[in-house]
């Protein structure tokens, strides 16, 4: 496990803690646990149902009123797919140095975590490190521009070929207009290092005598995304939001990644370009409850995927999916006399996916109940 990000984040937190030691520093604790019944755990045509229980806890320090430093961990247990069980430990910092009323608000955050899986799935063991910085500029009281940078990395402990590293630059604008209407537009450009297969003949990728690809190539996956969002209240206690997302890859036509029939399923097999639109509602109509729900549609094109057919011959397929999702979430937060927040949450999610690849023709639902305490 690479400890360097841990060291940097911890050192920065200790320095800031020392600087702010005379202020009203305090600590908060958060614990949550949830249970989910999934009718299609892996979201494919095999329809494996399973149930899992996930618990997480975090200890958060506030050495300065502008700084949050967290230590966090989580554990997930699967009833049938026991090997998919995993736990993680991590740390994160968020630094917001200026007031929201400042002309140029700033936001910085970084997170590092290590995740370990149970026996049989240890190839998934990974370390993730994310860092981002955003600066805003308030053009007026109701209009804010923003721009920022983000770096994300996932390093697999046992299989370097699946490592992911991406860098994103983005800019956006949030504005209110004509009373209670708000629009938020964001444009982003990302580039990521990835490993793919570059075949001489696209229909017959090169295999060695052990049926392993020999023509792995390191490349850069570039993408441009555009995402406008419109939101407004519906009545006095309900909010409506409509979000559109468009993403397109560049210079990727020849790239092939490994599908699920090979030992090392490429994490890039789930990366997509295309369009998505979703509508979300959030309401406080039921006293003391937060009810939210939404429906979404995705039209996805994936990188070309190499898989083995029933005769163990390699096939390269173009995967195109259409997906619809629906969810309903009910939260019941209770504030105790001591100021603790106890929250019970009930969630339902339904997904229907049609794909040019039969393995990914599926539908399924998740039913979840959870409990969280913040103190």
């Amino acid at each position, binding site marked *: 496990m690479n400890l360097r990000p841990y060291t940097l984040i911890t050192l920065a937190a200790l320095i800031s803690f020392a*600087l702010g030691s005379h202020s009203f520093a305090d600590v908060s604790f958060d614990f949550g646990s949830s249970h989910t019944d999934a009718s299609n755990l892996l979201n494919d045509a095999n329809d494996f149902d399973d149930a899992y229980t996930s618990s997480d806890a975090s200890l958060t320090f506030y050495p300065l009123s502008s700084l949050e430093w967290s230590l966090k961990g989580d554990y997930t247990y699967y009833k049938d797919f026991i090997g998919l069980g995993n736990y993680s430990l991590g740390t994160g910092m968020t630094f917001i140095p200026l007031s929201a009323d400042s002309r140029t608000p700033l936001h910085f955050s970084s997170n590092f975590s290590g995740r370990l899986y149970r026996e049989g799935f240890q190839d998934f063991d990974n370390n993730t490190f994310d860092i981002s910085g955003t600066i805003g500029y308030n053009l007026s009281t109701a209009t804010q521009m923003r721009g920022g940078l983000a770096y994300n990395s996932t390093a697999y402990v046992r299989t370097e070929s699946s490592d992911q590293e991406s860098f994103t630059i983005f800019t956006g604008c*949030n504005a209110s207009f004509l009373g209670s209407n708000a629009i938020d537009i964001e444009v982003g450009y990302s580039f990521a290092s990835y490993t793919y297969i570059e075949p001489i003949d696209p229909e017959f990728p090169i295999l060695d005598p052990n049926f392993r690809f020999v023509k792995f190539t390191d490349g850069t996956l570039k993408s441009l995304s555009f995402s406008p969002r419109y939101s407004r209240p519906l009545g006095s206690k309900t909010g409506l939001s409509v979000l559109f997302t468009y*993403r397109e890859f560049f210079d990727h036509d020849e790239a092939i990644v490994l599908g699920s029939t090979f030992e090392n399923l490429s994490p890039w097999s789930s990366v997509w370009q295309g369009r998505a639109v979703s509508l979300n509602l959030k309401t406080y109509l039921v006293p003391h409850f937060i009810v939210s729900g939404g429906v979404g549609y995705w039209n996805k094109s994936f990188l070309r995927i190499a898989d083995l057919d029933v005769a163990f011959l390699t096939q390269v397929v173009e995967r195109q999916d259409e997906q619809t999702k629906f969810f309903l979430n009910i939260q019941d937060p209770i504030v105790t006399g001591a100021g603790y927040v106890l929250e019970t949450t009930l969630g339902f999610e339904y997904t229907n996916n049609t794909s040019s690849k039969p393995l*990914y023709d599926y539908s399924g639902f998740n039913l979840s109940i959870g409990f969280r305490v913040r103190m």
Partner: protein
Amino acid sequence: MLLLAFTTFNVANAGDDTAKCSCFLDRDGDGIDDNARDLDDDGIPDQFGSQNDDEPEVDLGLANSDVFSFEISGEFDGGMEGAGLDSEASRVPNSQKFSALRMSSRALSQHRSGLTSGEDFGPGVGALSGGVVCEGGVCRPR
């Protein structure tokens, strides 16, 4: 070093404030006015039936200062009062001030670009933030 750099930047920008907006603002895109007060931090704006309706309002001082974050001299109370805050505001713990800051900077913390944009959908909020999301045979933490 990073903190000191930002401190310098902050001081240089003191007094650069924009006026506080009483108009509709929705930086997090939930369709609810961000100006709605939520003193008990339960996620329900006080005007929609908070359980702490009767609590007196505590001024966090956010509207009066953009430099409350830096008490590097170690003289926290004096620094706060010098920034225009009363003694009540100076007794507010850092977590509450940070919570207010986080609420007000939501547009900066939730960028939607990158290779996973368009995937933040579903009930992964509240107590249901654990578990995994599987897509195309690849599972990742929610």
